[in-house]
């Protein structure tokens, strides 16, 4: 008996390593003594601090915002005093302006979460405003402000919403635990989304290696015929937006600048749906998130509910600290995560995981050699590009050629690097090519 599961073309199948943390229930982490809240936790304009050094703030109080269209406000994640606003290391690798709050230990709310009006009776515009005010961004990792994603331009009708529960990155189990433990709330979040956009069809895509999540979500969605839980074949990068749309709806998003909404779809992470539920039904701003702390360099891998701004060092401490020969610390999964050079970086809205990998888990950094034209990367590329050729173009500075071969379509998933026997730094080359092409375009606006 075999069930043909839905999937997409290309991709890879790395060992999922989720057994390390999958069975651990979400735990509330102890209250941090200090939180470090960077003003850039989202794609778009940085927020501007609305508090001064020395000012007392309460949990959930808005401390930074901006008038810019693409921006999300930031809230104090603990109650206490603002002790400094200065540059501090950020998981992106650079230093950015950060608001530092010292806890008063009382953890008092600015406004206690409470059950408000039935969200489905509110108007869409009102709900969008609440989502913006709660500071919600895409919690899958990209951190794009959610209210912008929920405001499709005129003339682009949306007919389906997909909740992304694929969690295809190895090690990460934060979304999985959330789906198992908070299925009803996620479904409620999806119903709010359907209501905001006036859409009839909602899908929840989950990879088949999470049967518990599939059954929990199916049960929670059973009384809503407009919501369908779709079981997906285990394949990386199933959780990439375009691959998810292709798999579930068989629609193909055209090359950039086209977006999923050009094919009538909005995709949201399950964690985002949960945050939307909290923001709209409970009037609770985004001040914490679920983070998987895992890897063989961690004594007790866990799924923690961490306040935003908690330092990685503290989160690692809650999990028993390091063990063995630690080689690498990542924010996010091993495929697309960002390597960290210090544990003094804070948990931000886009932190889905903190991974501490030992020497055995990291591929040995070999010197990159020349492309041997084997074509494995071409088969692995889920965007159906030719990474070998584009990589060489970028390496030689042939930016026009790289653009003609659609380097801008690259989603930087890392599948090509995973399979490359020549150990070429393909994603890094693509990132370089993309940034150089985009910089050139910014310099020469169309005449």
């Amino acid at each position: 008996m075999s069930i043909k599961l839905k999937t997409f073309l290309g991709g890879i199948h790395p060992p999922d390593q989720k057994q390390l943390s999958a069975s651990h229930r979400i735990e509330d982490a102890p209250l941090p003594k200090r939180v470090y809240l960077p003003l850039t936790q989202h794609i778009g304009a940085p927020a501007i601090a609305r508090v001064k050094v020395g000012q007392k703030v309460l949990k959930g109080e808005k401390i930074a915002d901006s008038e810019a269209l693409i921006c999300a406000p930031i809230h104090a994640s603990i109650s206490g005093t603002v002790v400094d606003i200065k540059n501090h290391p950020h998981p992106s690798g650079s230093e950015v302006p950060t608001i530092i709050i010292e806890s008063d230990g009382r953890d008092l709310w600015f406004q206690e979460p409470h059950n408000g009006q039935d969200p489905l009776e509110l108007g869409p515009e009102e709900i969008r405003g609440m989502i913006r005010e709660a500071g919600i961004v895409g919690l899958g990792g990209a951190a794009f402000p959610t209210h912008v994603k929920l405001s499709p331009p005129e003339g682009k009708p949306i007919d389906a919403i997909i909740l992304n529960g694929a969690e295809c990155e190895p090690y990460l189990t934060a979304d999985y635990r959330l789906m198992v433990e908070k299925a009803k709330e996620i479904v409620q979040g999806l119903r709010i989304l359907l209501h905001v956009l006036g859409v009839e069809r909602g899908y929840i895509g989950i990879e088949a290696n999470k049967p518990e999540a599939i059954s929990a979500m199916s049960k929670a969605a059973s009384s809503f015929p407009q919501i369908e839980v779709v079981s997906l074949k285990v394949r990386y990068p199933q959780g990439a937006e375009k691959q998810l749309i292709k798999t579930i709806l068989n629609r193909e998003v055209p090359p950039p600048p086209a977006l999923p909404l050009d094919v009538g779809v909005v995709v949201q992470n399950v964690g985002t749906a949960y945050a939307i539920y909290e923001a709209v039904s409970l009037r609770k701003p985004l001040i914490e998130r679920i983070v998987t702390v895992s890897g063989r360099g961690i004594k007790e891998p866990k799924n923690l509910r961490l306040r935003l701004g908690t330092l990685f060092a503290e989160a690692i401490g809650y999990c028993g600290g390091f063990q063995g020969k630690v080689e690498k610390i990542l924010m996010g999964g091993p495929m697309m995560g960002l390597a960290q050079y210090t544990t003094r970086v804070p948990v931000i809205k886009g932190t889905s995981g903190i991974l501490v990998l030992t020497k055995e888990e990291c591929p040995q950094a070999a010197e990159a050699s020349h492309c041997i034209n084997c074509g494995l990367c071409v088969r692995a590329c889920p965007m159906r590009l030719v990474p070998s050729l584009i990589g060489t173009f970028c390496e030689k500075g042939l930016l026009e050629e790289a653009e003609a071969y659609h380097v801008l379509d690259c989603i930087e998933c890392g599948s090509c690097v995973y399979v490359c026997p020549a150990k070429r730094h393909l994603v890094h080359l693509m990132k370089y090519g993309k940034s150089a092409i985009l910089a050139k375009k910014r310099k020469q606006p169309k005449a």
Partner: protein
Amino acid sequence: MIAAVATLGGVAFILALGLGLASRIFAVEQDPKVSAIISLLPGANCGGCGYAGCAGFAQALVAGQAAPLECKASSDAAIQEISKILGIVYVPKEKMIAKLFCQGRNDKAKVKYLYQGIRDCRAAVLLGGGAKACAYGCLGFGSCVKACPFGAISMGPEGLPKINENACTGCGACIRACPKGVIQLIPARQMWYIPCNSRQRGKAVRQVCDVGCLACGLCVKSCPEQAITLDDNRALIDPQRCTGCGICVERCPQKIIQSPGEMKEVAAVSKG
């Protein structure tokens, strides 16, 4: 044999006739000024003028859209010649040279992490601004070396590029290639310059580099000509005011102020 020679010779003759006719009929009139100017320009096609190579610049000159001094790479004599061809008054230009505003050699500047990616500054900078702990320092992968059309830059053994002042024409190609903005142009006659690009001060600089400018301001205070200013924690020398007295060089606690041509000597002083 004869038939073969005759056939090939005949074919060659007919084709030559065709080519000869084509070159007459389709001849493109080129202003003799343009070709004369092209022969005077350096021919490196460095792009420093903003036109597509030297030929494009020559056309712009003749069309009156550009001034000869916009070519940073030409010698004074060449500019003078070009001005003569164009029939405009020649005003001598200040010779500028590129200088590296960083002394953070591998043994002097700290790194944040072990970098294993592509050996190119513009790729390295994508990872949190590069591996150097100082956010303003030279990354040392030599994007400027590759960009220099005059072969004036080479990579030193200590991870910093070396600029040959005699070969540098001040075209600015290296400046455009550098993602850190750590190369800047200064007048070739400038006596002293302060080779640090950091916008931080004091402790923050010391934590990441042994040879950084601490923005202490002693040079500013000591300068009798008020030629030095602190701009965003960078000490800048105004070449118009600097008389080269060297008081600032003595006062600098880091001993980093140096003459553009005397890297080695000054580096030796700072050790002792």
